[in-house]
């Protein structure tokens, strides 16, 4: 599906993460592109390739679809993400999707939701939060708590939205940074410690956790200690992908393909799979 980049948002002070707002060039493609939070798409640039990227906008946002992309390649240069970062508004690229499963909306309904995000892995969580906060959807969910951390204040994504969420009384927003600067007046501390401090009740509550492996490693024990079951802890996996539809054989973890059986899995589901990710 051909799309046009209608807006580029420079998200962080290191300028290596940008959000790309895309508009479908064919109205019928837009009608076909029905997605839910947690799904991803392949962004395509001819001559460079395709990259699987989580959808950062919510389906409640009409008229466009948004992706937040990091310029990849501290070690190996990412061809697609580099080309995308060098593009201007008005450029046309390809979009293939929506792909994968989503955050299990029906399972989340009528429950309290604790969203825990770390760093750049906040994109599909943001989609979920905006989806739940939409006026048509807010009553379908219980209490919403968001715990979001980044290394520095400048690395927090979606700063304008975070401020909006903090002003609302139907969502509890807890923002933390590993290390603040002279202007930072909010919390300082690592995400696992903040989770312990916030201590959400496990009663009728699902935790949705995405972040760097090190954050996940130390956050999970906090939630176990709080009494969360493995069925009620959800995360989203990453693997190298190509086709995105379960055919190219690349992204398997055991007998599951992350692209078509995932990327969203509960901790209970992951425990059944070999540790091959």
């Amino acid at each position: 599906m051909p799309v046009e980049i209608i807006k580029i948002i420079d998200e962080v002070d290191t300028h290596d993460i940008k959000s790309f707002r895309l508009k479908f060039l064919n109205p019928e493609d837009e009608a076909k592109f029905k997605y839910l939070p947690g799904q991803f798409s392949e962004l395509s640039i001819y001559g460079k390739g395709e990259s699987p990227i989580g959808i950062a906008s919510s389906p409640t946002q009409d008229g466009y679809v948004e992706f937040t992309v990091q310029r990849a390649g501290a070690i190996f240069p990412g061809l697609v993400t580099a080309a995308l970062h060098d593009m201007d508004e008005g450029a046309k690229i390809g979009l293939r999707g929506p792909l994968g499963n989503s955050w299990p909306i029906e399972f989340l309904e009528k429950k309290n939701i604790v969203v825990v995000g770390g760093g750049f892995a906040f994109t599909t969580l943001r989609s979920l939060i905006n989806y739940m906060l939409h006026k048509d959807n807010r009553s379908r969910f219980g209490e919403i708590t968001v715990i979001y951390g980044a290394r520095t204040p400048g690395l927090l994504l979606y700063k304008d939205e975070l401020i909006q969420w903090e002003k609302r009384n139907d969502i509890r927003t807890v923002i933390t940074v590993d290390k603040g600067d002279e202007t930072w007046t909010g919390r300082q501390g690592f995400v696992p410690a903040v989770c312990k401090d916030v201590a959400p009740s496990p009663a009728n509550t699902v935790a949705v956790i995405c972040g760097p492996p090190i954050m996940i490693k130390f956050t999970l024990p906090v939630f176990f200690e709080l009494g969360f079951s493995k069925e009620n802890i959800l995360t989203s996996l990453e693997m190298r992908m190509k086709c995105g539809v379960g055919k190219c054989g690349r992204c398997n973890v055991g007998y599951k393909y992350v692209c078509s059986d995932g990327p969203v899995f509960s901790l209970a589901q992951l425990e059944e799979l070999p540790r091959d990710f």
Partner: protein
Amino acid sequence: MKKTSISEISDLAAQLMGKGALIAPVREEAGFNFREISDAKQVDLNFYNTIISPKSAFFPQTEDFVRYQTGKDILEATPVELNIKPAFLFGVRPCDVKSFEIMDIHFTGTGAVDPYWQKRREAAAIFGYAFDLNTPADGADFYSTLGIGAADPEGSDVFMIKKGDDLLLKAITPKGEKLLAEMSVLSDATPDDLNYFDDTVAAGRAFKTRFTCVEAKPIAKKFEDLFGNTEFWEKVSNACLSCGACTFVCPTCYCFDICDETLFGKGTRRRVWDACMFTDFTLEASGHNPRTKVYQRLRQKVCHKYSYHIRKYGPISCVGCGRCTRACPVNIDIFSIVDEAMKA
């Protein structure tokens, strides 16, 4: 049932070529391989099995999707038209015929349908060909372990058995029936030929290759339990060079890469065969790679065929054709790994 003299096989080949592409084993420097026949005289049934599996007839090593000019508008890119003509896959061994069934489940039977595989498969007729039961099986083969007979006609449209200087051809499907009826170069088989055919099919079931007791569900469980046994995997992969030869000759390896290739402003997006034996197969843009070690990659290949595929789709994804063992430069043998796993 029909028959022809093997010395007149090129007449049959010529007649098939008049109806579509004939893909048959051709003698090449290194051995036999399936190729599209341009001269009916090329058809040579004096082969054991081909070096590379016949999967490339439906799943070519490279498949162009889109052509474009770099820097030009995305709307100017042109999808490559899928130009599929009727094809006859001639001389396919029973174990390889079985591999198509296994690939069908993945490419068209479950989830998204791969139109390339599906359309080529639909346009093709399979002429299966029994192994010669008077010659012992190659030491690498183990198809009888997987319940495949040396003369199983199932899955073929027409099944062929050599009887002395003659070739017997029996229609297995209505498509095969129709085809044989149209082949004027064939003569009718005798009752004696019919008996010979049935006897050979039965004898093929008793024909032994290397054998160990393997059943889908127990072996899948076995490898699930063995996954974390690093000592086992390091031992069996000790010599592995990660060259990927095993995956390229394999009839059931389906992994592919999608890549862009550009030269002087002209570009093609295509899919190409890929292999889980290569380090960059799972290398993520972040630099993270879940399978950096050789043993992890060989484990992936073996577990995919003998565990994951079973959990996901049902059957074992291996037909015991022995190609990977013959192709391996350091004599790694999947049969021995499976055998060892059963004993572990």
